[in-house]
């Protein structure tokens, strides 16, 4: 009974909240607009926006030297998570069955384990850093910890459900993923989408001035 609810209505509800919530947040940001810039630009902003969209994925040397832990842990977590999310066989099958209607190449079992270990290590390192470093401890709020905890639980339940031997574990994983989807648009997890806007704005503004941001 509960399983049917998690597998059916709650999935569609969470997906709907996620999609509408994300669109609502993006529209809410963009509709405020930005005042026109009357200064004479050195270069067009579009190229700079596009360049910064990609270049900010790589750290500048000075900050890499000083922020190694956050950067390395951040790469580990994000790369591992993307590999799990989009290349794990159960996920590809789920997405193919429920959303796209087609699948794609998946990670072998050892690849899944490796991605999971990298993602877990990255997430735990980031969480530990957040708790122990005076700067991140000062600037973090409950939303940061809630998001980290929720993502951790989703990943943990996913690993436990990997064998697909226990239906309960699969449902628990799905339930947690659905909660994450519902929480997503109203949390800092939105950075997964808004980073493109913020990088774009900054890249464009700096490119107008002739600075490669």
């Amino acid at each position, binding site marked *: 009974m509960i399983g049917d609810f998690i597998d059916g209505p709650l999935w569609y509800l969470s997906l709907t909240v996620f999609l509408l919530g994300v669109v609502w*947040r993006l529209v*809410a*940001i*963009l*509709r*405020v*607009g*930005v*005042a*026109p*810039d*009357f*200064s*004479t630009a*050195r270069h067009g902003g579009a190229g700079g926006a596009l360049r*910064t969209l990609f270049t*900010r*994925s790589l*750290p*500048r040397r*000075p*900050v890499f030297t*000083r*922020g190694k832990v*956050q*950067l390395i842990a*951040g790469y580990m977590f994000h790369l591992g998570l993307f590999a799990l999310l989009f290349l794990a066989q159960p996920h590809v099958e789920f997405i193919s069955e429920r959303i796209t209607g087609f699948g794609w190449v998946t990670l072998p079992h050892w690849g899944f384990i490796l991605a999971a270990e990298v993602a877990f290590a990255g997430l735990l390192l980031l969480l530990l850093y*957040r708790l122990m*470093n*005076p*700067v*991140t*401890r*000062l*600037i*973090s*709020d409950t*939303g*940061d910890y809630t998001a980290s905890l929720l993502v951790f639980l989703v990943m943990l339940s996913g690993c436990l459900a990997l064998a697909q031997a226990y239906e309960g574990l699969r449902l628990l994983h799905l339930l947690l993923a659905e909660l994450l989807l519902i929480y997503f648009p*109203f949390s*800092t997890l*939105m*950075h997964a989408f*808004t*980073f493109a*806007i*913020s*990088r*774009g*704005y*900054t*890249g464009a*503004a*700096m490119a107008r*001035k*002739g*600075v*490669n*941001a």
Partner: protein
Amino acid sequence: MSDRIEQARAELRSQIDAKVSSYFSSCIHCGLCAEACHFHVETGDPRYTPIYKLEPMRKLWRSEHTLSGRFSKLLGRSTELSEQDFADWEELVYDSCNLCGRCSMVCPVGIDIAYMLRKQREAFNLSGYTPEGMRNALQRTLTTGSPMGVTLKTLQATLAHVEKASGLTIPIDRQGADFMALFSSMEVVNFPEYIASVARIFDTAGVSWTISSEAFEATNAGIQIGSREGAKEIVSRAVNAAEKLGVNYLISPECGHAYTAIRWEGPNLIGRRYRFEVIHILELLDQLMREGRIRFNGKSDTPMTLHDPCQIVRRGGVIKAPRNLLHQVASGFVETTDHGSMNWCCGGGGGVSANERAEALRLKVFGRKKKQFEESGVDTVVTACANCRIVLEEGLEHYEMDTEVIGLTELVAEYLEQGAD
């Protein structure tokens, strides 16, 4: 809540545009910006984390632009941005931020923290929580025309000395000249040799130029404190004078924030494009050099490095011109680590040098420049901003360093070949 705090809140609300909203939505509180800020790096104080300095603005954004904030407000669980917030953050907003934008260059999600801090200062200015030194500088500029109280008579006295020493005539109010030059008070009072150098170079290159008796001051204390009205008034004086004289170009002096004010913020402050172009003095010298209108006679073989003023380079885009010029006049030029758009600020930008109570902190964080200069292994630093120059000299003296600071325009003039055509 007092009227001024209500006005400050309304101002802060109006400053939240799509950029600000996307920036706060993207911030994951990773703390990397702290690693780029000399105030944090040198003191280790987490309160100097750049994004933390924006907490008042974030508080307002969160309560009015997010679902959780609105929900908390409905439940009566959120607190309004209060006068105490302005009081508590004043030091972080003014004393420990140079608006240098180094943090904006390293944020992994691309947040331009300096852009937001500049906006937040508009609200702080209305709240009344501003440093006395910066308030006085703005007031003096609005009443006398200069943050240092330099009047037309002071300028004329300086120009008379320059003319006597150089034998040149410095044109004032020449209608239809090609270029109109602005200066900063510090150049007039502390570094008149800058004005003499400009006059010599322009004479050699045959530049048609003038100074306006109605507007010669380029520094803009309104930009620094966050007074849109004040900044607009100061910019308008220069714009009106340039348009009245019918010049094609307005020359920004070396001064960094003056360049930001007149080149990038000015048109937006007055709400329209100018009827002339703004060019930084270094861009103009580079252009004259490339056109063959100035040539050089020899080079300095003194080992020297360059301090990139933040507002000219990182926030202004004048990156290659100073290097092109230096390579022509200095054979011993070496770059510092973290140069160009990643250079460390001198610590005096954003009005901090006009803020007396921030002096001890400013000198402490100068430790970063000290290390940078020591690593470069040279004893001469070239820069292109009168404010940076004063702040560097004070810092070097404080740390008892035997390092000389020289202005780039003066160095160019020193090796100028007379009679080039």
